[in-house]
C-alpha cells in the first residue's frame, strides 16, 4: 500500500443538543461516528453525502477547525494534535469553502487575500512576497489588473479562483475542498473543475473533496467515501462504486440524480426524508429508510465487508444477498 498523506482512524465527533429554558444538554448528535479513511499522496478522495451525513464535521476536524472526541488523524505519518495546531502543521492543510465571499475582506483588494497567508507563514519578503501573490493569482487565471480590484467587483467564479490561490499560497500538502462549486453556475463550475484538475496535475496536490454533487465527485475524485448518519456506508474507487453501487443507500443516492440526457431513464426509489441520528442507536443508520431492512439491521452494527476493490457496511452484502 502506498504511503497515505492523510489517514483518519475511527474518528468520532459528538455535538450536544440543548433544550428547555436552562439550555441543559438533552441529548447528543453523533455527527461523525467512527469514520476511517486514507488518501494516498497526490490522489483525490471524494466524501459524498447529504445534509446531516457528517461530511462537513469531518472536514472541519481534518483542517483543524474543530477538535474531535475520539480517534486519530495522521498527516504523512505524523499524528495530528486534537487541540490547536502548531504553525508548521497549519501551513500543510488548507481549505476552500463553498462561499468564496466568506474568505475575502470587502475593504481590501483581492491580492491581499493571497498576500496574507504568505505573511502569516513567513513566506517571502516585501516586494518579493507581493510578486509571489500576484504570480499565484495568475496561475489560477486572475490577471494582475484584476488582482488590484475589490471583491464586489468580481464574479463568483473569479472569487472562487482567488480562494483557491489563497489556499495554495502556503504550499500545502492537502487541500480540503468543501463544496467548492456548489454556489456556482454550471458554465462557471466547469471552469473551476478544470482549474482544480490542472493544478493537481501541475503541483501534485492531494485533495479531500466534500460534495453532495455525485457527478462532481465522479469527475474529480479517484476514490469515494459515502457517508450517512456520520458513518461510512461504502467506500472504494469512484468508478467502481458509481457503476456498481452495493450499499442500498449508495444506490438510492445515485438513482435520485436526474441525468440531463432525457433518454436515460430516471426511476428514483423513494426512501423518505433524511434524518439526523441522535444519542446512541444500534444498527445501521440507514435502516429507517432502507428498502432491504430487516431485524438484524436495527439491532446490530454492520461490519466492513471487502468486495469489488472497496468496502461496504451492509448486512445484506455480508449475507451475500447483494453481490
Amino acid at each position: 500500500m502506498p504511503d497515505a498523506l492523510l489517514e483518519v482512524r475511527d474518528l468520532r465527533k459528538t455535538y450536544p443538543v440543548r433544550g428547555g429554558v436552562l439550555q441543559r444538554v438533552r441529548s447528543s448528535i453523533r455527527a461523525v461516528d467512527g469514520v476511517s479513511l486514507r488518501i494516498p499522496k497526490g490522489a483525490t478522495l471524494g466524501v459524498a453525502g447529504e445534509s446531516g451525513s457528517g461530511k462537513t464535521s469531518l472536514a472541519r476536524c481534518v483542517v483543524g477547525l474543530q477538535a474531535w472526541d475520539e480517534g486519530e488523524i495522521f498527516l504523512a505519518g505524523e499524528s495530528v494534535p486534537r487541540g490547536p495546531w502548531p504553525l508548521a502543521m497549519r501551513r500543510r492543510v488548507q481549505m476552500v469553502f463553498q462561499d468564496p465571499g466568506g474568505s475575502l475582506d470587502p475593504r481590501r483588494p483581492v491580492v491581499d487575500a493571497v498576500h496574507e497567508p504568505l505573511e502569516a507563514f513567513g513566506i517571502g519578503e516585501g516586494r518579493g512576497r507581493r510578486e509571489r501573490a500576484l504570480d499565484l493569482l495568475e496561475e489560477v487565471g486572475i490577471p494582475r489588473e484584476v488582482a488590484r480590484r475589490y471583491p464586489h467587483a468580481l464574479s463568483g467564479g473569479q472569487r472562487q479562483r482567488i480562494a483557491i490561490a489563497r489556499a495554495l499560497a502556503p504550499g500545502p500538502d492537502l487541500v480540503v475542498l468543501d463544496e467548492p462549486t456548489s454556489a456556482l453556475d454550471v458554465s462557471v463550475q466547469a471552469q473551476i473543475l478544470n482549474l482544480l484538475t490542472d493544478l493537481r496535475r501541475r503541483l501534485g496536490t492531494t485533495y479531500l473533496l466534500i460534495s453532495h454533487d455525485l457527478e462532481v465527485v465522479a469527475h474529480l475524485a479517484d476514490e469515494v467515501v459515502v457517508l450517512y448518519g456520520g458513518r461510512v456506508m461504502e467506500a472504494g474507487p469512484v468508478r467502481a462504486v458509481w457503476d456498481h453501487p452495493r450499499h442500498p443507500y449508495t444506490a438510492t443516492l445515485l438513482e435520485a440524480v436526474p441525468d440531463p440526457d432525457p433518454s436515460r431513464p430516471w426511476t428514483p426509489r423513494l426512501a423518505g426524508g433524511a434524518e439526523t441520528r441522535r444519542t446512541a442507536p444500534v444498527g445501521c443508520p440507514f435502516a429507517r429508510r432502507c428498502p432491504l431492512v430487516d431485524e438484524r439491521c436495527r439491532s446490530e452494527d454492520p461490519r466492513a465487508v471487502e468486495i469489488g476493490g472497496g468496502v461496504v457496511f451492509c448486512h445484506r452484502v455480508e449475507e451475500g444477498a447483494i453481490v
Partner: protein
Amino acid sequence: MALLEMRDVRVVVDAPEGTRTLVRLSALSVGEGEVVGLVGETGSGKTMTGLAVTQVFPTPAVRLAGGEIRYGGQDLARLDEASLRRIRGREIAMVFQDPATSLNPLFPIGKVLVDLLALHRGLRGARARQEALALLERVELPDAGRVFHRFPHELSGGMRQRAMIALAIAGRPRLLIADEPTTALDVTVQAELLHLFDDLRREEGMAVLFITHNLGIVAHTSERLAIMYAGDVVETGPTAEVLQRPRHPYTRLLLEAVPRRSSAGQRLKAIAGTAIARSDVLAGCPFQSRCPYADDLCREAEPSLEGSDGRTVACHHWEEVTRRA
C-alpha cells in the same frame, strides 16, 4: 390555445444611476396542464420572468415596463393591483426555493392554511380545517394531524417545502410557477418532491412553469423547455429535442459543461467568460463574446426568436450549430 402567453415583456429596475432592463422577454407560453421548464443561469432573468406574471416583485424599484401577459382572455400587464390580487393564489400560485420566505414563522402551518382556504375558497370552521388536513395529506406529509399544529421552524427542509406546496395548491390554481423549488434539498428528498409535483399536476390538471438551473431536472419533468440568457429566451422546444439536438450554441455549450461520470479525469468544455446582464447588451447577440460561432453579423444584429415545428431559436447560425453537432 395557451393558458399563459407572454410577449415582449420588459422588467426594469429603477436605480439612482438610471433605469436598467432586467428582462426583455420576446415570447414564452405555457399550455393548459402543460409543464414548461424555464432554464437559465444566475442573472439570466428567469426568476424575474416568473415574478412578472402576477407582478410580485421583491422591491418597488422593480417593475413591469411593457409587454403583454395573456392569461385566460385578459392581459395581466394591464390589470390593477386589486384585480391582480384576485388572480394570485387562486388562478396562479407560486412556490419558491426557500419556503421560509413564504411561510409565516409566527403561525402554525394549519392556521395559515385555514386562513388561505377562507380567502380563496370561502371555507370556514370545521370544513376549512378538514380541507387543510386533506391538503397536508395530499402533499404526503407524514402525520398531517400533527404537522397542522407545527410552526415552520419545527419542520425539516423537505417538510417545509411540502407545506409550502400545500399552501400553493390551496386555491386550486390552474398555473403553478415553481422557482427552484428543490434546489436547497438533498437529492433523495428532491426526487420525492419532483414525484409529488408530477402527481399533483396530473390529478389537479395544473399547468406548471418550472424555473431551474438544473438541466437534469427539466429533462425528466418538463414537456417543453425555454432556455434563457441575458434576460431573454434564446431557444424553446420539446424537452427531448432541445436537449438531444440543441440549436442555440449556448444550450449546446451548457450541456457540454455538465460534469458526468464519463468525464472523469478529463477537462470539461467550459464556456469562456461570464454571463452578461441584459442592461449591458449594447449591439448584436448577447452571447457573442462567449460564442465560438460569432462573426460580424452577430456583432451587428441581435437575432430574433424564430422557428417552426414547435421549436424556436434566436441565433443567426443555428443551422450550422445543428450540422456540426
